């Protein structure tokens, strides 16, 4: 994610331009520029089902908030939204990135498969529910049942969470800085490993979140912790002589 602001090359109104025409314009602009130019979308007023299934590589700056299911099944867009969003935003995300500079509703990132979703405010219940892959970041607090039925991917929580964090049936990795009201049965907390610190550091830089990776902890299935402890017991102790 580029920190240097780009000049806007094109501007469209979400209220006045039909979405089919918008997507045609995205394709043309992407063909001409390789998706490097920034497109500004104005008049975002909480529209539902906006900007779904974008396949073309485009860079978008949405001025205002969007409604439910925005950017569902996105593949190509690298988008920033200056406002709040509704429920189910980023459902089935396949690639690209969507950054919400406001708050998100319920089910943020449900069933996402790839790409990066970030919310810089708070998010409601069931963030990353049924997640399969990709990365989801919440700088603020999140609600209950985060990561329920998540089978893969990475979840990063900068604030606190509600009850029942995580799901021991899946392989999703959760990094947390704040406090969880409770963990799901079968989940446990652990310190970061070195490899996690490096990875987390990159995630935080990419998401422009000012934080030290060392402030975070891992939330993983207890079975994973047991396996890690058993592997450490099997390690050779260097000073055994």
């Amino acid at each position, binding site marked *: 994610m580029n920190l240097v602001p780009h000049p806007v090359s094109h501007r469209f109104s979400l209220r006045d331009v039909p979405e089919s025409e918008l997507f045609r314009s995205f394709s043309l602009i992407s063909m001409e520029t390789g998706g490097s130019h920034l497109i500004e979308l104005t008049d975002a007023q909480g529209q539902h*089902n906006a900007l*779904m299934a974008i396949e073309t590589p485009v860079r978008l700056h949405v001025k205002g908030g969007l409604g*439910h*299911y925005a950017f569902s099944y996105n593949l190509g867009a690298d988008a920033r939204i200056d406002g709040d969003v509704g429920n189910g935003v980023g459902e089935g995300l396949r690639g690209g990135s969507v950054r919400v500079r406001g708050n998100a509703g*319920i089910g943020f990132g449900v069933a996402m498969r790839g790409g990066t979703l970030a919310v810089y405010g708070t998010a409601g219940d069931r963030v990353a*529910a*049924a997640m399969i892959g990709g990365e989801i970041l919440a700088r603020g607090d999140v609600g209950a049942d985060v990561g*329920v039925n998540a*089978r893969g991917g990475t979840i990063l929580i900068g604030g606190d969470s509600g009850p029942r964090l995580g799901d021991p049936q899946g392989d999703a990795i959760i990094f947390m800085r704040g406090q969880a009201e409770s963990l799901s049965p079968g989940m446990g907390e652990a310190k970061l490993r070195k490899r996690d610190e490096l990875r987390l550091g990159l995630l935080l830089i990419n998401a422009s979140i000012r934080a030290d990776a060392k402030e975070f902890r891992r939330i993983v299935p207890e079975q994973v912790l047991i396996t890690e402890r058993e592997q450490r017991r099997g390690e050779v102790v260097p000073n055994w002589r």
Partner: protein
Amino acid sequence: MPRSHGEPVSLPSPFLWFDPPWYRIDVDSCLFLADALTKVGITVACGQRDLFQQDDVDFRDFRRMVAHRCDRSGLLYKDLRDATIVDVRLIQMRDRHGRFAYPINQLRRWANQEETQVDMSIDAMLFPPEWISLDDMTAKIAQLRRLSGASVSVSIDECCMAEMLPPILRARADMLVIRTSGDPVASIVQAKQMLNASGGGEIPLWIVPTLPLSAEDCVKCFAMGASGIAIDAMFTDALMHLDDMARTTAQRAAISFGGSVESDESDRIVELVDRVVKRFIDDVSGFAHSCGVGKMSELNESHVRRR
């Protein structure tokens, strides 16, 4: 099948394979089986990952239902884009232990992973996680209509009809699918009464019986108002036992030497479908014709003899 938006969707017959356990048979056989069933007029529920190991394969042009489960298991965007019917599936099948869960090999098939011998299941979600209440169904159906040109159905259990039919009608679903547990005719009558009372009597009603129906039972269901019937209870077990079908000596020898028997495999499957499914559909048609109608849609209550 009329729709509240767009042109009506045409289905070749009023039969559907609602929840095939594709993971139970070899992936190569799945495509032959889906193809054979489609050719006899059955609409098959399947996703890309059920039938193919690659994601860049163009799906054959046959009519299919795609299940939009609460947790979107097995669903790709390509499935939504190419489907004939997208089913908002608010029911969940049980695994062999009776839990609302996916067998691990079903999940592995969807994830393009090799199957495992481990016997375990992963819990399924029973309610879409981004919904607060059933009223959110309207937003979900609107989303699916934007993403897909398909008809949108909603499938529920009969025990939930009182609670779920009103939001389904408010959401203007194109089709209603009800899984019945006992006598399907009684369920159809009850559903039709509720739908008529709510002004939704025109919505096509399909049923998924959990007990096998005879050809005569099917005709009764059509006469009492069903628009379509799922064949799962009648034929899933038979269709899943492809390996039990006797191979010829030459085929077994070819397989043991690493030879391809693809055309023979497809022939075996076509023979099975003809013997098991097509014959049943012909029996149903025969019964319907014996009632003096030319099409299934002409059946009505007067054709059901009251004792």
